[in-house]
């Protein structure tokens, strides 16, 4: 089942909340790197930098195929970055793939 189909199975509010938390986390990473949204957009090769703002408020998601370049742009290791993004964007599969990971996703953004 696709991530999109699964996402439909999630409670809509939960999914929205997770994306917001992902956005908060991504924003914290960007700000830690002292990058503006425009600069990050340039690094991840996005023409319209307002997309960064959109992602950071929890609307939409980092495209799967762009996760690696996002990690590099934010100076993060790719696998941990992708793993954590997965926990936000695809929590069902995340728990299947990483059953040993007992994290409360909603707390991640505050870590």
């Amino acid at each position: 089942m696709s991530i999109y189909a699964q996402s439909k199975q999630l409670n809509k509010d939960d999914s929205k909340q997770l994306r917001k938390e992902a956005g908060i986390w991504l924003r914290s990473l960007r700000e830690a790197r002292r990058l503006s949204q425009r600069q990050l957009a340039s690094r991840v090769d996005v023409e319209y930098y307002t997309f960064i703002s959109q992602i950071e408020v929890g609307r939409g998601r980092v495209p799967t195929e762009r996760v690696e370049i996002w990690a590099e742009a934010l100076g993060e290791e790719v696998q941990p970055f992708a793993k954590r993004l997965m926990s936000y964007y695809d929590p069902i599969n995340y728990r299947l793939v990483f059953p040993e990971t007992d994290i409360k996703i909603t707390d991640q953004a505050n870590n």
Partner: protein
Amino acid sequence: MSAALFQLKPDQSPQKRWWNNQELAEFYRVSDIMAQAGLEVESESGVSDEGEPWFVFVRSDTGEVIAHFAIIDGAFIAVSSVTQDLYRGTDIRNLIDQLVDRHPMMTPPSSNGKVVLHPSIILTAFVAAAFVAATEEVRANTLDEVLEAALSLKNSDKSNSTKETFETASAEETTNTINEDSIKETNTEIVPTFHDFDAGKTFGSSFALLGAVILALEISSRETALANTQQVKSSVNFQMLADLNIAEYVPVPDFLTSNNPLTANDINFNDISNLGNDSQFQEPILNSFLSLKKSNLTLTTDLNDLYRGIHVSKMTASDNIVNSADTVSHSNSDFMKHHHLDDQSLSQTAIIDSNLFFSSDTQQANKTLISENSEQKISLVAIDVVSLVSGTANNTPQPVNTFPHKLTNNISINDNNPDFYSLENSLITSFSSGTINRDLQNPIDKERMEDKSSNTNPIEREIKLQSDNIKGHIISPDSSQSLVLDSSIDILLYEGGDVSVSNFELGKDRVWFFLSEGKMYESYQITDANDLVLEFETGDTLTLLGVLDTEAPSLVI
């Protein structure tokens, strides 16, 4: 993509600003229009760290962002979030122009050669396409690719015919198109590639986006009708109307017969007005007719009574009413050449209301395929025939869209007239209406829905898109003889055969005809059971069971 696009001399950047009220109104209007079409979207706006605004449309069902608008460095930006197609203009109007230039099918043609567009219409077309594109099946396809696949002809020489317009078509789609030659020889020359079920992605994407575009065309048609009617009212050929012996053509209202032809003297242009509101896109009608319409409709719930004695119709267009078509060309490509036939060319019945009430209810896009030995012209046509039946759907006084007197079909065009393409080869007809009541809280509706799973005899092939919003049904001579629709937006692609369709919901579900010459629509009948039976030259019938049933809660329009 280049990130340098927006790094334009920051010191000279225009002053940051928030969306103005007009822009926000456009956005919210898009949402309203989408909702009316059954495409529920949410919206959200925000501001960048530089203080520049953005606005996104989000699919309500998936939460997926489908379209992103922003003002960046003073430029107005629109992005299809799925395809990442980006448009940039100096203002919203300029952006609209770019959308139209790149996708002329979004342009509602005008019968008088003047295209009157409200920006929200094109924006809606853009967002609607993005909405439907946001499914897995169509992901990563561009609108051009999808349209190319949808409109490709079998046995066509694509290198000759479509190179100019569809340079982005993928090799995969081309292969799929060619490989389906043997599927149905009878329509080999003229039928688009909707038979290609092995190419699921291609079909799904074609179907979805073509549907979205036509949906947008329908919407824009209504909107444009308002403006155009106001503009072209002085150009209506009333003598032509008066010369018509319209009693030969049905259905016609009782007060408008051959013994009482409409003349120019009957028309008071001051009476032409928009009786609806903008959000419902109700067409202007003559105030002077309003009382007559009301009396007819409120006193009559039986369509047979309304059309006493004229239950069967056969419509053909005579040469003298084939109006010189206005051609709006937005590009040099064959396909993108817009060719809007004035409604007068559709049917004599339609003339009366088309010019006076619905000045632009037909949208057409043509494509010329040139091979070594032949030249083929096909057309995609979206025709609004809602007024045929909508009048019986609601007993409450509803002045607009309640006048069941129009059925346009079987378009016959003078082939000797070089200004016209033949429409007989390919015809898409859309049943549609304005306001849609899709509330399934009604227990009867719920019961209907529950019954469907048990008694549905699945049609031969059914395409269900990820969105659950739009479901396509291919109806062919080989299909099952019955089909029960559900709450989705069902689109019937009719190629022939005797088929009865239950739960067809006016205003929501649609029928598109893919018919070849000799198989065209011929006539219709309305049965005592309020079934609409469409008859074709082959003797096949497509029956929409109970579609005119005034008691059916699903038919509240």
